[in-house]
C-alpha cells in the first residue's frame, strides 16, 4: 500500500515504543535477579548468585517448586486427554447441542477468576480436597481444559473425517483409526494445547490462593504472599527461572512442531 514516508516512520516509532513497553519488565527482572544488594535498586550495584542460592537453599521454596511442577505436569496430561476427547466429539457431532456444550466447556475462561476461586473453595471444603494435591490438579485441569479444547477444535477444522472412515472401512477399529490417521494430522494443535495447559497451571495464582495450603503450597501462592508482605530479589531469581522455564517449553514445542511438519 503506498503510504507517505513520515506516516510510516511515525507508525514505526509508535510500534517500537509499544513493543518496548511489552518486553521492558522481562528485561528488568533478569538483571535484578543477579544483584548483590538486598534492595531493589536498578541497575544493581554489583553481581552475585545469592538470590538463586536463597531459592535453591530454602526447603520451603523447593517444596513449593516441586508442588507446582508436579501439578503442572499432571494438569497438562489430564487436560490434554479430556480436552482432546471433547474437541473430537464436538467436531464429529456438529449438532446444535454441541454448540451450547462448547460454551459450557469454555466457561472457565469467561468466569472472573475470583468467582471461580471461591466456587472451587466451596466444593473442596465440602469434599475434603482443600490443601491436597489431587484438589490442586483437578482445579487446574478444569481451568486448562478450555485451552486444549479451543486449540484442538481449531486443528480439527481443517481435517476431513472421511479419512478416518476410510481407515475404519479397511478394518481398523475406531481408536486405532484415530491414533493412526487423525492424531498425526492434528498433533501440532494437541501439543500447543498441552503446552498452554502446562503453563496455565504453572502460572495459576488466584484459585491457588483459596485452595492451596499446608505442605501443598504452590510456587505462585508463596510468591504472591511474599510480594504482598516484603519484596526481596529472591522473587526476581524465581521470576527469571519461571520465565526461562516457559521459554524453554515453548521453544522445544515449536521445534517439535516444525520437525513434525517437515519430517517424513
Amino acid at each position: 500500500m503506498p503510504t507517505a514516508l513520515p506516516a510510516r516512520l511515525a507508525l514505526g516509532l509508535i510500534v517500537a515504543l509499544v513493543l518496548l513497553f511489552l518486553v521492558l519488565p522481562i528485561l528488568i527482572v533478569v538483571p535484578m535477579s543477579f544483584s548483590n544488594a538486598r534492595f531493589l535498586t536498578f541497575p544493581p550495584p554489583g553481581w552475585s548468585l545469592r538470590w538463586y542460592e536463597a531459592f535453591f537453599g530454602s526447603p520451603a521454596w523447593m517444596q513449593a517448586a516441586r508442588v507446582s511442577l508436579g501439578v503442572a505436569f499432571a494438569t497438562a496430561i489430564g487436560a490434554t486427554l479430556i480436552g482432546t476427547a471433547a474437541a473430537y466429539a464436538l467436531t464429529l457431532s456438529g449438532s446444535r447441542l454441541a454448540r451450547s456444550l462448547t460454551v459450557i466447556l469454555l466457561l472457565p475462561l469467561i468466569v472472573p477468576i475470583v468467582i471461580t476461586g471461591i466456587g472451587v473453595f466451596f466444593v473442596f471444603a465440602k469434599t475434603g480436597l482443600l490443601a491436597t494435591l489431587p484438589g490442586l490438579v483437578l482445579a487446574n485441569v478444569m481451568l486448562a481444559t478450555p485451552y486444549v479444547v479451543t486449540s484442538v477444535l481449531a486443528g480439527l477444522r481443517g481435517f476431513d473425517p472421511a479419512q478416518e472412515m476410510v481407515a475404519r472401512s479397511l478394518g481398523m477399529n475406531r481408536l486405532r483409526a484415530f491414533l493412526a490417521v487423525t492424531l498425526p494430522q492434528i498433533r501440532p494443535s494437541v501439543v500447543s494445547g498441552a503446552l498452554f495447559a502446562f503453563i496455565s497451571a504453572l502460572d495459576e495464582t488466584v484459585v491457588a490462593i483459596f485452595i492451596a495450603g499446608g505442605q501443598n503450597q504452590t510456587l505462585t501462592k508463596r510468591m504472591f504472599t511474599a510480594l504482598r508482605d516484603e519484596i526481596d530479589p529472591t522473587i526476581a531469581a524465581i521470576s527469571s527461572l519461571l520465565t526461562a522455564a516457559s521459554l524453554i517449553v515453548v521453544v522445544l514445542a515449536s521445534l517439535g512442531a516444525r520437525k513434525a511438519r517437515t519430517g517424513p
Partner: protein
Amino acid sequence: MIPSSPALRRHERRERMLLLALLGPALAVVTALLVVPLAWLAVQSVTTDGALTLEHYRRFLTEDIYWRSFLLTFRIALTVTVLAVLLGYPVAYAAATLPRRWSVVVLGLVILPFWTSVLVRAYAWMVLLQRRGLVNGLLQGLGLTDQPIALINNEFGTVLATLHILLPFMVLPLYATMQRIPRDLMLAGASLGGSPLHVFLRVFLPLSMPGVVAGTVLVFVLALGFYITPELLGGGRTFMVSMLVSRNVEIYNQWGAASAIAVVLLVCVAVLFWLASRVVPFERIMGAR
C-alpha cells in the same frame, strides 16, 4: 428421510453414546467445579439461613463501598480497554502489513510477555515504578520532577500493570482479523483515487472492526475480574470488585454478600459477551474459530 433399519438405528445410538462418553470427563470436571458452585452462589445470594431475602442485594444501595467498588472497577476496565485499543491497533496493523520477516519479530515480542507469569510482570512493575525505581530516576534525571512521583500503590500503577498484561489479548484477535483483509481491496481503493488515509478509513478500518470488538470485549471482561494487579500494585486504595468478593469470603466469611457481588459481576460479563456475540460469533472471540 431415508428409512432406517434397526441395525442402522442401533449403530446411530452407539455412535451417540460414544460421543457422550468422550465429552463426559471434560463436562463432568467443568460442571462439578464451576457450574454447580455458580448455581450454589446464586442460591446463597438470595437466602439467609434458608429463608428467601434480597438483603444481600440491598447493600448495593445502602453501602457506599459496594457501588464505589463497581464504579472504580468499570472505570479501570474502561481506561485499560481504551488504551489497549489505541496501543494495540498500530502493533496489530504493523504485524499484519509488514513483510513476513518483520511481522514474525513483532508477533514474537507481543507473545513473549504472554508466556511470562502474571506475578512476574506485576513484580517487574513494582521494581520499575517504586519511589527509587528506574522510571522515577529517569524522570528526575531529565529534570521533569525534583521529587519522586507516586507511581504505584494507586490507580495509575494498577492501570499500567493491567494494561501490560491484557495488551496481547487485544493485539492477537486484531491481528487475526486484519490478516484476513484482502490486500487487493486497498489497491483497488488507491487505484480509484483514494488517498492512503482515505482508503484506510473507508476500507481497512471498517473491515477490521470485528477484531476490535473481539479484543475489546475480551480485554474489558478480563479487566473487570482482575485480582492480582490491583492487589499488588493498588496499595489497598484500588478496591476492585474481585477484592470485595475475596475479602467477604476470606476475612468476614460472608458468603451471602460475596455471592451477591459475584452474581452481579457475572451478569455484567454475560451481558457484555451476549452483546458482542451479536457482532462477532462467540467462538471467534474466544479464539476457537
